C-alpha cells in the first residue's frame, strides 16, 4: 500500500528546502501569470483589511471600497466585544498548542517505531495508519458528540482537544522523515551500549527529528487553529468559543452587525497566522512540499 504513495526522492539536506529544480529561465509570460496568481492569492486578504477599516455603511454601498478607511479600531472593538473574541483567542491558542504538542510527540514515537523498529504486524498497522487518513470527521461526529455529552464536556476545551490528540498524517510524516534521516547504525550502536528505548528516543530520535517535528508542529497548529466542524458542533454555548466558532456566530446573522464588523472579526482570526507565515513562511513552504507529498 505504501509503495504506491508518491515519494519524492529527497536527500537529507534538501528535505525542507526546495532545490532550484528546472534550471531554465522563466519568460515574461511566466512572470505575468505568476504575479497575477500572487495577486489573486493576496487580494482577498487585502480587501478583508479594507472592509474591516471602512464603516459598515460604506462597505454595503456600491461600488465597494478599494482603499483602507479610518474605522478599523471601532470595528475591531465591536467585533471583539460582540462574540467573546478575547476568550476565543485564548481558547484557540490553548487548543492549537496542546493539539500540536501531543500530535508531534505521539507521531514521533510511532513514526520512529514504524521507520526503524521491526515488530510483528508492522506493515499491517502502518497500512491501517495510512487508511485512517481518509476517515473524515463527519463519520464519527455523532458518537463523539454523545461521548462528550455523557462526560458533561460540552462547551469545554477538552472536548475540542480530545479527538485531535493524534493524527495519522503526522505518524506517516515522521515515519517518512526518519526512514531516511535516522541512520540505523546509530540506534544499533546505542542498543549495544545498553541504552534503553527511552534513552534512544531522548538522545537520538528527538534531536535528529527536530526539523521535521517543527514542521509537523507548524502544520498541525495552522490546521487546529482553523478547524471549524467539530468545535462548531461541540461548543454550543457562546461563552466558550474558539475563534472560528465566534466568527461563525458573528457571520451567521445571529447578531445585528454589519459586514464591516464581521470582516473585522475575520481579520482577528486571520492575522495571528499571517504573522506566523510572514516569519516562518519559507519553512512552512518547505515543510508542505517535503511532507504533504507523501501523505
Amino acid at each position, binding site marked *: 500500500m505504501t509503495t*504506491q504513495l508518491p515519494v519524492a526522492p529527497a536527500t537529507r539536506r534538501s528535505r525542507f528546502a526546495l532545490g532550484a529544480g528546472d534550471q531554465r529561465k522563466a519568460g515574461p509570460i511566466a512572470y505575468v501569470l505568476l504575479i497575477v496568481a500572487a495577486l489573486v492569492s493576496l487580494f*482577498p486578504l487585502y480587501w478583508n483589511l479594507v472592509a474591516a477599516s471602512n464603516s459598515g455603511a460604506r462597505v454595503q454601498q456600491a461600488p465597494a471600497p478599494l482603499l483602507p478607511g479610518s474605522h478599523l479600531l471601532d470595528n475591531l472593538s465591536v467585533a471583539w466585544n460582540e462574540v467573546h473574541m478575547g476568550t476565543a483567542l485564548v481558547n484557540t491558542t490553548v487548543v492549537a498548542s496542546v493539539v500540536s504538542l501531543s500530535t508531534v510527540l505521539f*507521531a514521533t514515537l510511532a513514526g520512529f517505531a514504524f521507520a526503524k523498529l521491526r515488530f510483528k504486524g508492522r506493515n499491517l498497522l502502518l497500512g491501517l495508519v495510512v487508511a485512517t487518513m481518509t476517515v473524515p470527521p463527519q*463519520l464519527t461526529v455523532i458518537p463523539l458528540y454523545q461521548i462528550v455529552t455523557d462526560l458533561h464536556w460540552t462547551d469545554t476545551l477538552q472536548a475540542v482537544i480530545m479527538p485531535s490528540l493524534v493524527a495519522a498524517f503526522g505518524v506517516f510524516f515522521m515515519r517518512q522523515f526518519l526512514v531516511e534521516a535516522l541512520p*540505523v547504525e546509530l540506534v544499533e550502536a546505542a542498543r*549495544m551500549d545498553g541504552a534503553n528505548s527511552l534513552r534512544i528516543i531522548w538522545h537520538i530520535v528527538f534531536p535528529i527529528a527536530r526539523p521535521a517535528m517543527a514542521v509537523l508542529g507548524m502544520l498541525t497548529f495552522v490546521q487546529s487553529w482553523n478547524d471549524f466542524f467539530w468545535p462548531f458542533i461541540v461548543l454550543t454555548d457562546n461563552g466558550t468559543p474558539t475563534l472560528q466558532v465566534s466568527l461563525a456566530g458573528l457571520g451567521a446573522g445571529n447578531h445585528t452587525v454589519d459586514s464591516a464588523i464581521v470582516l473585522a472579526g475575520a481579520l482577528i482570526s486571520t492575522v495571528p497566522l*499571517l504573522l506566523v507565515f510572514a516569519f516562518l513562511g519559507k519553512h512552512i513552504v518547505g515543510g508542505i512540499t517535503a511532507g504533504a507529498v507523501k501523505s
Partner: protein
Amino acid sequence: MATSVKADSGGSPASVPPSPAQHRRPSPSSLRSKIYHWDLKASPYAFIAPFFLCFAAFGLFPLIYTGWLSLHKVQLGAEGQAQWVGFENYAKLMGSEFFWHALVNTFTIGVISTVPQLLMALGLAHLLNSKLRGRAFLRIAVLTPYATSIAAATLVFAALFQTDYGLINSLLDVFGIGPVQWETSKWPAQIAISTIVTWRWTGYNALIYLAAMQAVPNDLYEAAALDGASRWRQFISVTIPSIRPTILFTIIVSTIGATQLFGEPMLYGGNVGISGGSGGQYQTLSLLLYQTGWTNNNLGRASAIAWVMLLILLLIGAIQVITARVNRKKLGG
C-alpha cells in the same frame, strides 16, 4: 539474539560489520538483560500505542457505532431509548428528495472546485519550477490562502460575491455583465462556493506538484529539447507522466475533501446556511447530516448519511486502486 525485534535498516540488507561494542552486551542471565530484552520487544508497541489507543477510542469505535446507530430510530440525548428499525433509515434516505439533491450538489460542487483547482495548481507549479526572481516570495504568496480559515475566507468571499454591492458584480458591471445572483441562483451560488475552496487550496496543491516536479531529472528535459520538443510538449510528455502518482494522490485527497464540504456552504448562506441556501441549492451531504441530526433531532437518519459518505469514500478508494493498476499495466511495469 533470539528475538524478532531488532533495528531495521529500512529495507536494504543490514551491512553493519559486527560492532566492536558487541562483547559489552549485558550477560544473558542477569536481570538487566531480561529488562533489556523485554524493552526491545515491547518498546515498538509502546511507541505506537498512544496513536492506536486514541484512534480506537475517537476514530474506529465512533465509526462502527455510527453504523449501529444508523439502524435505529434515536434522538439526541436519548440513546437509551434507541429503537431498532433495520435499514429503514437508508430506505427513507433513498426515497428522500433532499438526500438526492444533497448528493448531486456535493458532486457538482466537488467537480467545479476540484478540477479547476488541480489544473491551475499544475500550471502554477510548472511556472514556479524554473529560474525565477522572487521565487520565495511567490511561493509564500500562493500558499497564504492556506493560512486563512474556512470561516474567515468564506465571510470575505461572501462579501465579495454580494449581489447588490459586492466587488465582483461591480467588476462584471464594467464589462456589461450582470448583476449575477450569486446567492439565490443555483449555479452561481455553487460556483461562488467552489471559488472559496479553489482559492484556499490551489497554492497548496501547486507546492505539492512543485516538489514532485523537482524530482524529475533534468536530463529528460534536455533529451526532449534535443528532439525538438517545445516547452508545452515537454510539459505534456515529460512532466505530467513523471509526476502521475502525485497527481493521482491530489485527486484522491481533493475528492475526499470535497465530499465533506460543510463550513463553506454553511457560512456562505448566512442565516439560511444550515439548509444550504434559500432553496437548498447548495446543500451538501455534510450540511444535511448536521441538519438531520442536530436541527431535526434524528440521529439514526444522520448516522445513515454518515455511512453513505463512508461508502462513497470506499468507492473512491476502489477507483484509486483500479486506476493505479491500469496505469501500471499501461506503462508495462
